């Protein structure tokens, strides 16, 4: 999926004080790219990711996904975009505690129902778990998994509905460096194998550099873009 933004701007109001989170961001990301957005906290990188992921809406500016402009006022179209084309990976994994690993992976397919039958969904979820190397932990509850395993399940879940764009918000933030590296390797591998675009927010510039394109952001503006 190609991603393009034009003059993307986001203000917050903290009481009477205007906070500028994004200040005219122009961005162009090609199909199948692995983009890392780096910057200190408060730089606006998470806001950018949330807006691209249709979880938040911009104050001004336009976002084009695969060339089509996103209409942030149309709630229904945002739901469809999230459901069919986007996949999320969070810093805190956000697995559903009541469901085991394979059910967590199946969960997004549930909202995309007409697609498959229950058994097909389970089969696909098992395949995705195998892809992240966790097929043996399929029936474990999140409370029985380690941090690295949780994030692998979360990544498998992000792939559940066959998204064209994966948005990862500090996916290694809660992991030790060794586990974090294995997660990044997994994302890189999936990026190569599945050919979908990945946008990752991180503050680990060193590892970001190894992944692909790095976008530095500061005070809501893009500082530089390195390939």
């Amino acid at each position, binding site marked *: 999926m190609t991603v393009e933004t034009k003059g993307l701007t986001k203000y917050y109001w903290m009481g009477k004080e205007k906070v500028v989170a994004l200040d005219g961001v122009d961005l162009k990301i090609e199909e199948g790219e692995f983009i890392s957005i780096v910057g200190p906290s408060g730089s606006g990188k998470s806001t950018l990711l*949330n807006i691209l*992921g249709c979880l938040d809406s911009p104050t001004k500016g336009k976002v084009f996904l695969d060339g089509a402009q996103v209409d942030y006022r149309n709630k229904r179209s945002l739901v469809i975009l999230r459901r069919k084309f986007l996949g999320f990976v969070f810093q805190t994994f956000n697995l559903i505690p009541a469901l085991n690993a394979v059910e967590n992976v199946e969960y997004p397919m549930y*909202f995309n129902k007409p697609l498959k039958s229950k058994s097909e969904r389970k089969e696909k979820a098992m395949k995705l778990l195998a892809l992240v190397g966790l097929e043996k932990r399929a029936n474990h509850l999140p409370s029985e998994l380690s941090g690295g395993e949780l994030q692998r399940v979360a990544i498998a879940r992000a792939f559940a509905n066959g998204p064209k764009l994966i948005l990862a918000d500090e996916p290694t933030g809660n992991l030790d460096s060794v586990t974090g590296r294995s997660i990044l390797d997994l994302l890189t591998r999936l990026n190569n194998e599945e050919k979908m675009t990945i946008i990752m927010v991180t503050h680990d510039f060193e590892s970001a550099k190894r992944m692909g394109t790095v976008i530095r952001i500061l005070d809501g503006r893009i500082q530089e873009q390195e390939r």
Partner: protein
Amino acid sequence: MMELFLLAGRQLRRKKLRVFLIVLGIAIGVAAVIGVTALGEGIRVQAVEQIKASHDLTTVEVSAGAEAGNVTLITESKIKAIKQEENVLFVAPYVKDSYVTQNNTYLAVKGVTPEYRGIHSNLQLEQGNWFDESTHSNYTQIVLGYDVAKRLAVTEDLGVGDEFGAKIRLYGEEGPPRDKSTVVKIVGILESAGDEHDNQVFVGITEAMEMDEKDAYDGLLVKVDDPAFVASVREKIEEIGLNAQSAQDVIDEVNRLMVAVTLVLGFFSGISLVVGALMVVNTMIISVYERTREIGLSKALGASDLDIMKMFLAECLIIGVMGGILGDLLGIGFSVMIDLVGKPFLVSTLGGELGASLQAGSITAITPSILAVGFAISLVLSIVSGLYPARRAARLSPLDALRQI
């Protein structure tokens, strides 16, 4: 759909104690309503049974009709019309007069036909005979009701075979009322009938009508071959302008009263359901707070507002089903308890005949419809109570929800 409920069940299983407490709360409310309704229904059934046992369900009582100032009298031609109706076995007209003895004792006199005695089978002779209308004599033959006979024996020293003079006051359409004298002879005395007949004096209808010079009857009993046709016969009688009543009227009255009483009691016992409903609202709101992140996540993963709402309502529905089943079971238990504990109390308080009649049967009656309504109440209650929390969950912004810790 199935999965929605599986998922909801999964969520509920994680907070078993909380769910059990709400379910119990709803169930107790439902059980209270069922218990009270079953008691009302039980007493209603008993009362109706009692009426059926003590009333002749195949008799229609006809009196003169009065509608918009027009009085329709029971004349010979009306009787003929009624006799020709289908399902009518026979009719028994009667007249009512009052005689006064020389010592100024008033006698309530009823002029009756033999058919009248056929309908009121409790009119049995203790002494003497019934009047013989075929033999014409210079005195009027009368049969005394049990209480009248006793009174006359004490105050006027009269018994079977005695004759005495009596007067009847006639109110003509014109002129002043005039008195008409006759000589009456007591030919028989009745056993106690246990009703208003004990205070009446009976005369052959022909003689009675000669005396009072009326050209219409005061009342008419219509015997129908089967209780099922009473209503249709009644309608026919009312069509010709007369007033008709049957034991069914009394039964209808009791039914109306008991249904009203039961509804009022059920309504007030239903207040406990409000408590159950508030518990559901409270628990589901807490659940929304606890699962805010999960809701945000679900939205990020593609859930629509409706999906979220359905997930919460499915949990409420499961709670409602469990509350309904448990409420029905507890309700049955309640009514068994009312029967065990409440019945002896009611019987001793009411005492007498009414108490004795309650002793025989059960004072509560659980019908499938009571249970169905109890179940439905639980279902509707939990869904309605879940609407607000579910809507609240559905409306959360995914980003805000995800940020919440």
